[in-house]
């Protein structure tokens, strides 16, 4: 299985390459990609430098152009496809069918991967994208259980990539407008979720309140670990009971499933986290490289090493990890 790693900037890209990535994925410095955060992403000289570094180390480069082009500014997305093609990258990760049509018509040789933002959760959907746009690979949304993933591989007309580690989106990706409902900006249109410009951290006595566009997302007592106010991870009241109504802050970690995923025919594992630091990328990629190498050396003897587990736990949201939808404890 190919290890596909996040590169939010040049130091992260170097960290991924140096620690054993098979491929890196990155975005241009604008809202054409789903991690459009200030200080992240690539353009001009740094972009060329990054591509050269990856290629010199035989690491593939994928460009994410995986938001939905805003009608008024279609040109920006179209130009991004032109640029990715000119850069001769290994694949472009896309979600919008208009953009796929443009790429297929103009650059039939440019390999397309279907972004998780396209929400293709079944083989009929995958066939649509394969037949019309010749996609080579699809990234599977984080809503399927392990047995559903295994079933999908059997029926899929294209190679599949799954999320292996990182922040956990609990909604069906590409089908969530929570962020634009509260802040006006969404992953689909702007490449952001719960944008930093809308966040306030406010002390009220002993309590720290986090708000998103003035909507109270959570309150933390002194000593509690205060997380970033992502809407789906807030504490709200339902039936007069206070809880994480949608999801607890936690990270996805599928390392235990490496043997099952490999046996089922999954072709690539994706590490989430273009917004994370180079140190984070280095640690996570290094541990996953070791785990995959250990698995392929002796598949029958594969065991998750305690040190790997601890390293991943330490860098996880709320220091908690879960198998998420793969195991569905809530099912």
């Amino acid at each position, binding site marked *: 299985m190919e290890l596909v790693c996040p590169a939010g900037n040049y130091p992260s890209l170097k960290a991924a390459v140096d620690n054993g990535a098979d491929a890196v994925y990155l975005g241009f410095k604008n809202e054409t990609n789903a991690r459009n955060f200030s200080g992240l992403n690539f353009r001009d000289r740094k972009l060329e430098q990054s591509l050269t570094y990856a290629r010199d180390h035989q690491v593939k480069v994928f460009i994410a152009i995986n938001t*939905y*082009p*805003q*009608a*008024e500014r*279609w040109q920006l997305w179209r130009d991004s496809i032109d640029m990715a093609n000119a850069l001769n990258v290994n694949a472009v990760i896309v979600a*919008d*069918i*208009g*953009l*796929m*049509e*443009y790429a297929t018509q103009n650059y039939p040789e440019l390999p397309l991967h279907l972004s998780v933002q*396209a*929400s*293709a*959760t*079944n*083989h*009929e*959907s995958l066939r*649509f*994208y394969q037949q019309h746009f010749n996609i080579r690979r699809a990234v599977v949304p984080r*809503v*399927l*259980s392990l047995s*559903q993933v295994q079933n999908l591989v059997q029926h899929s007309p294209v190679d599949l990539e799954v999320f292996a580690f990182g922040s956990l989106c*609990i*909604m*069906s990706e*590409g*089908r*969530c*407008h*929570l962020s*634009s*409902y*509260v*802040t*006006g900006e*969404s992953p*689909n249109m702007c490449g952001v979720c719960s944008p930093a410009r809308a966040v306030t951290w406010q002390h009220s006595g002993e309590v720290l309140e986090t708000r998103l566009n003035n*909507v*109270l997302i*959570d*309150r933390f007592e002194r000593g509690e670990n205060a997380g970033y106010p992502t809407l*789906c991870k807030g*504490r*709200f*009241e*339902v*039936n007069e009971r*206070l*809880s994480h*109504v*949608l*999801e607890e802050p936690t990270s996805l970690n599928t390392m235990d499933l490496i043997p099952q995923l490999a046996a089922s025919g999954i072709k690539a594992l994706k590490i989430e986290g273009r917004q994370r630091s180079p140190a984070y990328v280095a640690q996570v990629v290094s541990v996953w490289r070791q785990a995959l190498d250990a698995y392929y050396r002796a598949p029958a003897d594969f065991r998750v090493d305690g040190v790997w587990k601890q390293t991943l736990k330490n860098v996880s949201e709320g220091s908690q990890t879960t198998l998420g*939808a793969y195991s569905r404890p*809530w*099912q």
Partner: protein
Amino acid sequence: MKLSLGPILYYWPRQVVMDYYEKMASTAVDIIYLGETVCSKRREMRLHDWLELADHLTKQGKQVVLSSMTLLEAESELKSLRRICDNGDYLVEANDMSAIQILAERQLPFVAGPFINLYNSPALKVLVEQQMRRWVMPVELSRLALQAIHRGTEEMDIRHRFETEVFAYGRLPLAYSARCFTARAYGLAKDDCNLICLQHPQGMNVKSQDQQEVFTLNGIQTQSAALYDLREEMSEMKHEGVDVVRLSPTLEGMVEVIQAYDDARHGRAIEAVRAEGQCNGYWHQGCGMDHQSSDDLKAD
């Protein structure tokens, strides 16, 4: 402009559904969408029930469209989807690309529902070529976005080949998850949910810790807490060439809502919308939860 009644997004007992549509048959809506779009465990109404209802409503002069599921994970769900697509009589609303694939293979026309991500005219063109007859604009898009999309489709000379429908009234469907949040609120596993959604015919209210209503839980779907209401924007929608105005069913007060929209489309005076608990921000290119009163609009 035509008025449509969207699919019922909640889980209501069979008899409630039948009685509801009996009432709706004599309202001014032109189009009625029937079917389950949220959760495949909701089986009070089976496909043959929907089809019987469809025949009945058709005889009463309504155009009926069969709506299909949004999040399809299991093989059994694809099987049910194929049965809907093969109904032989009624147009189908596709809410997932799998439905479009199945319908396109059969060379059948379809409606693209609000969770088919169509954000620009080149994307619309792809589906028009697959016989898309109508699309429901994603709820987060604005009037300005719609203008740009229509302009683009006019330039491509395809605007005459499809109708545009705008979600105008109801709690906004905002997100879908594999997880059931209603079951979670009761501490129940999804497989043993006891069909708890039946107890929440208008969903469950989610409040912030300072008592602001934020969302509504409806099984695996998360909706807005506020009611989206564009009745005061009817003339703007008409101006933008909107063909169909979608009203999403609520258990109470729907007949009055339809009456108000019917009045508005015929230029008759309507009462102003109360700002509290209402929103219209998406249409005005703002946060979805915002509300601009008509006075604000005049001040622009």
